[in-house]
């Protein structure tokens, strides 16, 4: 209670100060801020509010029908999921479980439960997302919108690999080029180059590099292994497609984060290194106890920026695979565009964006909490 009573006047005081400052600001200041305010409102705030509102309607891109509120049905069809336990097929006479040649029990098709089966209305229209074996039974996770679930999974996997991968590689590069060597600027320029080139151009070039027959990567691997390497259709296989896009994405933006790390490195006073040197610290100890603590704020920034960018993954996928093969590379933003624009379902696309917004918001709040200053 005492805490509240002592803190209240201070809060009031600060708000009074900031308010009077706001009013005291000369008109010229407001006038200068006006264009930016207008543009921000028009292109950030209005679309954001619209997306939120539209996700609860049945708004279409092209339609003579009036828009109606439909409650949360867009979200229900997006996020609906259920669990189905399948019992193995049994031989009618003996009651024995029927097994295939490898000894795995056989099961009735999921389709029998999800389509036109009045006994299981809760599964109607759902599809198998994945499943696993539990004893002789098979547990299947069903989703109402399998493609969106895949997009969700792919995006999360992308973030989980790219955030530490790109951040770490960028730090390594930054440490390498933060030395007083001749011609180090050439390397800085080279590492930074992919950032300057448009992502669409980079993605097109990498499509040629990943080409299944005579792409650069396949030719190179073939050359290195003296022809023993069998060409892989990198973007055409479900197993390699997302990995290929992850690799290319890390390479493309690593230079940008390298520059941020570099600026962080250069704020660390040389005297600290000299002191560590006198204390007899080796290179690892210098990094661990001087460099790393000095980079704390930079690390938070880099991590948050990479996470945000990774969640917005779209251009590479759109150019290189368009979400295929078999949804192996589809992402949340790609789905939002696909639904809202290509399939003219603005409401559905908005619902996808709202889900993405809530995810990114949660994750950045968690990141902020985890990386907060501890006293």
């Amino acid at each position, binding site marked *: 209670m005492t805490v509240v009573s002592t803190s209240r006047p201070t809060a009031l005081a600060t708000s009074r100060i900031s308010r009077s400052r706001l009013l005291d600001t000369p008109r010229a200041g407001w006038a200068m801020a006006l264009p930016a305010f207008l543009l921000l409102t028009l292109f950030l705030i209005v679309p954001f509010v619209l997306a939120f509102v539209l996700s609860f309607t049945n708004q*279409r891109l092209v339609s003579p029908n009036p828009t109606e509120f439909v409650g949360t049905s867009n979200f229900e069809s997006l996020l609906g999921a259920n669990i189905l336990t399948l019992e193995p097929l049994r031989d009618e006479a003996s009651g024995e479980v029927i097994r295939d040649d490898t000894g795995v029990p056989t099961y009735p098709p999921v389709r029998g439960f999800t389509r036109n089966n009045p006994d299981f209305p809760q599964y109607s229209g759902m599809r198998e997302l994945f499943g696993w074996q539990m004893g002789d039974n098979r547990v299947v996770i069903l989703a109402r919108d399998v493609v969106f679930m895949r997009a969700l999974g792919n995006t999360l996997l992308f973030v989980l690999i790219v955030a530490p991968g790109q951040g770490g590689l960028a730090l390594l590069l930054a440490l390498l080029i933060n030395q007083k060597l001749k011609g180090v600027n050439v390397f800085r320029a080279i590492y930074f180059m992919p950032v300057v080139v448009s992502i669409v151009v980079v993605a097109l070039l990498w499509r040629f590099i990943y080409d299944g*027959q005579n792409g650069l990567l396949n030719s190179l691997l073939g050359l290195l292994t003296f022809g023993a390497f069998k060409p892989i259709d990198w973007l055409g296989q479900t197993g390699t497609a997302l990995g290929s896009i992850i690799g290319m994405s890390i390479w493309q933006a690593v230079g940008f984060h390298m520059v941020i790390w570099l600026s962080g490195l250069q704020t660390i006073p040389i005297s600290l290194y000299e002191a560590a040197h006198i204390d007899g610290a080796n290179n690892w100890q210098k990094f661990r106890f001087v460099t790393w603590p000095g980079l704390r704020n930079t690390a938070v920034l880099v991590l948050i920026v990479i996470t945000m960018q990774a969640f917005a993954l779209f251009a590479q996928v759109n150019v290189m695979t368009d979400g295929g093969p078999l949804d192996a590379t589809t992402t949340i933003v790609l789905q939002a565009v696909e639904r809202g624009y290509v399939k003219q379902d603005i409401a559905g696309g908005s619902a996808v964006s709202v889900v993405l917004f809530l995810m990114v918001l949660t994750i950045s709040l968690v990141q902020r909490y985890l990386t907060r200053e501890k006293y």
Partner: protein
Amino acid sequence: MNRRGLLIGATLASVLMTTAAFAATELSMWYHGAGNPVEREILAGIIADFNASQADWSIKLEEFPQGAYNDSVTAAALAGKLPDIIDVDGPNMPNWAWAGYMAPLELPAGTLDNFLPGPIGEWNGTLYSVGLWDAAVAMVARKSTLDEFGIRIPTVTEPWTGDEFNAALEKIKASGKYEYPLDLGMAWTGEWYPYAFSPFLQSFGGDIVDRTTYKTAEGALNGEAAVKFGEWWQHLFTDKLAPGTSQDPADRDSGFASGKYAISWNGNWAALGALTAFDDTLFLPAPDFGHGPKIGAASWQFGVSASSQHKDGATAFITFALQDKYLAAFSDAIGLIPPTPAAAAMSKNYKEGGPMAAFYELSKVQALVRPVTPGYVVEAKVFEKALADIANGAKVADTLDAAADEITADIEKNKGYGL
């Protein structure tokens, strides 16, 4: 008002009156073919002829690149700035008519009497658009290849049966002479999938949507016939009879000419290239998988926008453009199929005995337009994804079920698209 004021007023009024009487009213027209000088030249020629032939209307042409065209029309419609005459891709027409972008097209009686069915854009019993040409697809093969493998040369009246076609592919594959026996053009994503591949499904007895009601895809896209089609489709890729979704676009364009593929499923727009590559190129009808051989129809067409203030002028221009000589000119320049027998007779490639006359026949006998419904825009995308997924190894029945569900749900969400 003094005398001077009166005088000025009178002069102004007379100037206004004479302009109204003597200057033609300007009509705007949008076209999707920016960047194609040949098309532009012909269209500009028609417009110049029309403007000179009468004094009431003057057409002003604006061109857009094809990739950005549909978006531009949607944006213009939302802003209320549609041109008087719009150019529309045949299967998109019902969507735009339903959305209120297009007005019914009232051509003089008998104008379309001799037309092929494809270029006539009718929806809900009303004419909205008409095309100056049609497009068709054929199995392109060399006579020498077919002879070498002892494959019968099919005719329009006696096309290959499904079994015959499969056997032919297996035979060519077994010889090992070609990278793939069949090239379906999987590299051409987008509208090519429903345009070129839904006729196979229809020949099996399925369809993208149930055309009797246009209210559901259940049974049409995931019925027994459709599943059979899906299994056949998948076997083309699992048995390596055709290159899959990761086909190199360059191979699609040059693979037949360079001898990578024995048979190519390709449009008449690529026919000139195939003819110059080999002197024994044949254009063969689609195989019959049980419900007759089918190919797609309907290409870009012209219509009048609903917001046009001068619908009579716009209609007059479209009527004027439908003269046989213009239809033949378009055909000669870009290899498209002229929609009337008279225009076909005047054209270089489609006249009796012309090198591409086969396409005219195919278009007349086998053509089936894509589903005529405002929902087609969505259905085409769903179908494309389903076919790509099946080609990549997805479970056939499940994939078709999901596609049918998505289409049916879309129709419901749109309250039956006005039907």
